[in-house]
């Protein structure tokens, strides 16, 4: 449709403000970028309007720490220089795209090159339902916890990877929806970091879901973990890795053996499922899946415990 055909073109800017607000909330980020190229009035409208609701967003540095990427709903921005100038330039650009935006999920991958102050300014116009942080150093972990305080209405998730925090760092983490800890790179099976049982039990009581790599635990400790989970309020999920031979030893301690079949009860344990790749038990309110479990091979078993019935996903 061209101007020569349409004689009666509406004066878009004569519309009431409520209309502009409603309309711009429905224009995605990519189209907002084009719209601001149209004229100064649209440029101003784009900058001063709510961009609406998006399922997800993310800010993350590249592996080499030279650049950073930002995902805002439908739009991805790449190759921005991870420097004070680069960050400020992007901030100014973002300020020209909306005055408010709402995300269901937003992930902040922390970096030593991205200051807390920048993240505060970057997220100033964000409403976030579920906020995820990823931290790979102690400093990043502390800063993540500090930033969580800026979003009291959001639920928080934290992924700690590639380093083992000190005990006091574990203790200062506020209640989370999901706490993930991946320390696989910390060493070989002989010297890798395993979360001590006491800390793991503290964490499982404070966070709805605790997903870890290896945990230092014996059969008594695991029984205590199950008791805490069974008594936990709300839905609780625990997931960690353990060598199959160690799991086999726990199960024998509880009276469950290679010969146990579905329906067998061993003390408070009930065998729900058993096959060559996994074993599922019930203990009080808990459902326990040993995924990838084998009685004789010493590979890693994923232990998943929930206090509700449902699919236990690895």
């Amino acid at each position: 449709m061209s101007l020569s055909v349409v004689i009666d073109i509406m004066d878009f800017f004569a519309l009431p403000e409520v209309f502009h607000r409603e309309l711009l909330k429905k224009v995605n980020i990519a189209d907002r970028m084009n719209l601001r190229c149209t004229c100064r009035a649209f440029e101003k409208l784009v900058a001063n309007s709510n961009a609406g609701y998006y399922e997800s967003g993310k800010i993350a540095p590249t592996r080499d720490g030279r650049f950073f990427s930002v995902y805002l709903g439908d739009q991805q921005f790449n190759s921005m220089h991870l420097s004070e100038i680069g960050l400020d330039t992007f901030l100014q650009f973002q300020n020209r795209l909306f005055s408010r935006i709402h995300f269901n999920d937003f992930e902040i991958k922390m970096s030593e090159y991205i200051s807390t102050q920048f993240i505060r300014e970057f997220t100033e116009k964000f409403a976030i339902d579920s906020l995820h942080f990823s931290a790979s150093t102690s400093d990043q972990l502390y800063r993540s916890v500090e930033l969580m305080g800026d979003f009291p209405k959001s639920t928080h998730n934290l992924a700690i990877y590639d380093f083992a925090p000190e005990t006091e760092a574990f203790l200062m983490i506020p209640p989370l929806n999901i706490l993930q800890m991946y320390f696989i790179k910390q060493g070989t099976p002989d010297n890798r970091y395993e979360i001590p049982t006491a800390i793991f039990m503290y964490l499982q009581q404070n966070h709805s879901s605790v997903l870890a790599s290896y945990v230092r635990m014996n059969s008594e400790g695991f029984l205590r973990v199950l008791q805490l989970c069974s008594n936990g309020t709300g839905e609780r999920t625990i997931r960690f890795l353990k060598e199959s031979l160690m799991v086999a030893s726990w199960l024998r301690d509880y009276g469950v053996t290679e010969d146990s079949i579905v329906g067998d009860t061993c003390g408070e344990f009930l065998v729900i499922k058993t096959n060559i790749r996994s074993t599922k038990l019930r203990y009080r309110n808990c459902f326990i899946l040993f995924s990838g479990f084998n009685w004789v091979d010493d590979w890693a078993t994923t232990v998943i415990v929930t206090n509700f019935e449902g699919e236990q996903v690895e």
Partner: protein
Amino acid sequence: MVLITLVSSDEQNFPVERELLKQSGTIETLIVNMNLDDEDTDAAAMPIPLPNVKGDVLEKVIQWMEHHKGDPVKEGDNEDNNAEIVVPQWDDDFFKPAMYGSKHLELTVAASYLDIKNLLTLSCKAISNTFKGKTGPQIREEWGVPNEFTPEEEEAIRKENEWSE
């Protein structure tokens, strides 16, 4: 079937089924305030004046409400009204003939004045869809907007947009 008469700014009368008017927050409030739902009130004898809506626009609004009879009525400001909303085919065909014209503007303003949230949402979305995937110059041409930017300003905006994929 209870009929309520709406009177447009150019004094045209539109008898409308009571049930349809639940979609309009403004008219619903007037009906309550005028006690038109009371059995003792002769609703037919008490027309509702709508001084901000012309007859031809009100006719379109009623046509839209008739098609959407029984749809859930949206309440409050919902942030979920966003880029993901899909305009149904019937509504797309309904808006299309006057999409870029002042009639669409008047219909949208009427939806706002009458507080018909679903109509306002779909009307806004239909307009925002006209921007979809278009470049600045294409939007300018379609909406008859003059280019105010200098070549240097256009280049600066183009450079900023290069970050995106």
